[in-house]
């Protein structure tokens, strides 16, 4: 077997460029150039991996190098160099594999975002102690108190009344969370209730005012307990981290040029994830309400009242303001809660 190629020889001590001719003969490579003649065993030479048409480098014993563009000769002489990267190079050269890579990326990232990341978060959550959620919940409450909410204006007697309705919901639950109901006055958020990880549930004064029946409040609280039991707070944190990791991998190169590419999908994702959690919490609420002898209809009632209150506020804003409802409608499908009408229907169906 004889293979010959032209190359440039660098001794590794200076940058001097020496054009040479290399010839493989048996198990040695003969390198000949001006004032030099070398004979080196082929198995003491290592070839770098091929990448596109980048010039190849052969490392010789003692730190010297041959550089050559003769890819064909090297393919014959060093077929086994860097097996992994030889395979990768093949992938890169075939249009079919390139298309395959594209499809793989598309399918895998879609699957990961929609199923993989939530599944991974759910699995990891299973190993995490409940204590973690308590810490997380306490911190969230502290920050809510610092930023958006003030102590409730509700009379102590009324609070007591609602707490007893709440304990009907939580008594006999086997999930080892210590549930606690907190009342707050949060003007900026309006009528709302939220579950903090670990079992603390915050309800705003305006939600209590909005309700026409305490059973409606109980229904909302059942929904919030659903968030706690399904560990949505922790899962959201983990999903956020997972999605961010995936996006930064995908965006990699693009992100160094534009941060927008990364900001957008993250926004959309968070929306999608919390939608799923709402549905999960709803499902739990319907079940639990029926267990304690209440109809899920009260949940539907409360949602209807919330929706009416929201659209009235919207109308007022539109009237006073600049009639920008067009924009809102366009972005409405991005809203955090699943379509309210759909949720109301589900509650009525669950009766």
């Amino acid at each position: 077997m004889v293979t010959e190629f032209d190359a440039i020889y660098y001794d590794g001590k200076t940058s001097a460029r020496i054009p040479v001719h290399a010839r493989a003969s048996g198990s040695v490579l003969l390198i000949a150039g001006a004032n030099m003649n070398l004979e080196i065993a082929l198995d003491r030479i290592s070839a770098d991996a091929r990448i596109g048409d980048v010039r190849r480098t052969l490392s010789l014993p003692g730190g010297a190098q041959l550089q050559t563009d003769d890819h064909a000769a090297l393919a014959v002489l060093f077929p086994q160099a860097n097996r992994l990267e030889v395979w990768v190079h093949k992938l890169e050269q075939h249009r079919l594999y390139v298309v395959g890579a594209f499809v793989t990326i598309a399918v895998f990232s879609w699957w990961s975002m929609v199923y993989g990341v939530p599944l991974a978060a759910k699995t990891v959550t299973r190993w995490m102690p409940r204590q973690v959620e308590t810490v997380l919940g306490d911190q969230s409450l502290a920050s809510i108190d610092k930023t958006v909410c003030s102590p409730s204006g509700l009379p102590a007697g009324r609070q007591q009344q609602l707490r007893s309705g709440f304990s009907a919901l939580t008594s006999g639950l086997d999930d080892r969370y210590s549930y606690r109901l907190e009342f707050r006055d949060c003007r900026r958020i309006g009528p709302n209730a939220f579950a903090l990880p670990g079992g603390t549930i915050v309800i705003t004064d305006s939600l209590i005012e909005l309700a026409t029946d305490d059973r409606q409040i109980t229904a909302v609280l059942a929904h919030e307990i659903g968030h706690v039991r399904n560990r949505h707070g922790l899962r959201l944190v983990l999903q956020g981290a997972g999605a961010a990791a995936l996006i930064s991998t995908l965006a990699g190169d693009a992100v160094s040029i534009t941060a927008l590419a990364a900001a957008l999908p993250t926004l959309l994702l968070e929306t999608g994830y919390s939608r799923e959690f709402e549905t999960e919490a709803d499902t739990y609420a319907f079940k639990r309400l029926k267990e304690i002898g209440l109809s899920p209809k009260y949940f539907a009632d409360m949602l209807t009242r919330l929706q009416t209150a929201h659209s009235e506020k919207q109308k007022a804003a539109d009237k006073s303001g600049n009639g920008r409802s067009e924009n809102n409608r366009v972005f409405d499908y991005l809203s955090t809660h699943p379509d309210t009408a759909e949720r109301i229907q589900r509650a009525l169906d669950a009766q």
Partner: protein
Amino acid sequence: MDSSGEGSILPQEADGKRRYPVEFTATAGEYFRIWIVNLALTILTLGIYSAWAKVRKKRYFYGHTRIDGEGFEYRANPVAILKGRIIAVGLFSIYSLTQHFQPLLHLALAFVLAGAIPWLIVRSLMFNAYNSAYRNIRFHFRGNYGEIIKILFWYGLLAALTLGLMYPYMKSRLARFIMGNHRYGETRFEVGNLTRRYYAIYLKGLVLLVPTLIFLGILVAVGAPLLKGSKYAAVIFVILAFYGSLLPIFAYGQSRINNLIWNSTAMGPVHFESRLRARDLMGLYFTNIVAIVCTLGLAAPWAIVRTMRYRASKMTMVSTGALDHFVAAEAAQVSATGEEIGEMFDIDIGW
């Protein structure tokens, strides 16, 4: 500020000087294949392949960056990068998790990390230089920890205390530290005093900042009411407005600083001429962003290649002699840990 070059283009042999334009011969099509296969393998191996991907990408770009017909080599071992990455991911996970569960520990870690920045920067520069070679002669970085600590922490503190007045001074010293501690083999890169011209660039940038901020203010004042009530549209709008209006100033700063540093640098018989233009960079960045967003990221390889090609096309090496007489230096191998931690925590190592 690109006044330090000689101006007219010298014929090749005048004064015995030779002019070597930097060539960048990578093509968008070929890099696209490398990029997409890298990405597919990275996600399929849940990130493990990313170390090999990084090396293939850098080897491709280095190999296609040529001076006097000879390409550069990137020699990092993917396994070393993988080890560094595993350590970095571990640290980053601990750091992120403590943010939610152990705020005090998180704060302590943040301090430790901030204290480690000089180390991370020096190690990263060492790793990168050691693994870069041209004509089989490695580059080296031999920066002194004491000096970078003084620049970052002491001058950094002074910059804060003087409300930014000392900031250009700090940056000029940092640039000089980074460039001036590099060696090609035994030959040192020498950088003149940059401080005075740094101030000139920052001053002009500051003047440019005035119309930029007015423009941004008008944009937000006009745009914000249009988007009231829609969180997502508002976020996207603010990001777009922010990047759009800062683009000119960013392009100005990048081109002038880059030109200044290269034009003030000599290495043995060699000096450099860099002639980047702000308006060219601005056009490139703008079209890159549009193309990347419109193609959902698929244009990223094209954007990167054309940007690098432009940058190379504006760079020339001028030597008083042939490039055959540089001498290699002895230096110990460097681990990739510093570089990978720095990348993970997004610590910017440039000037």
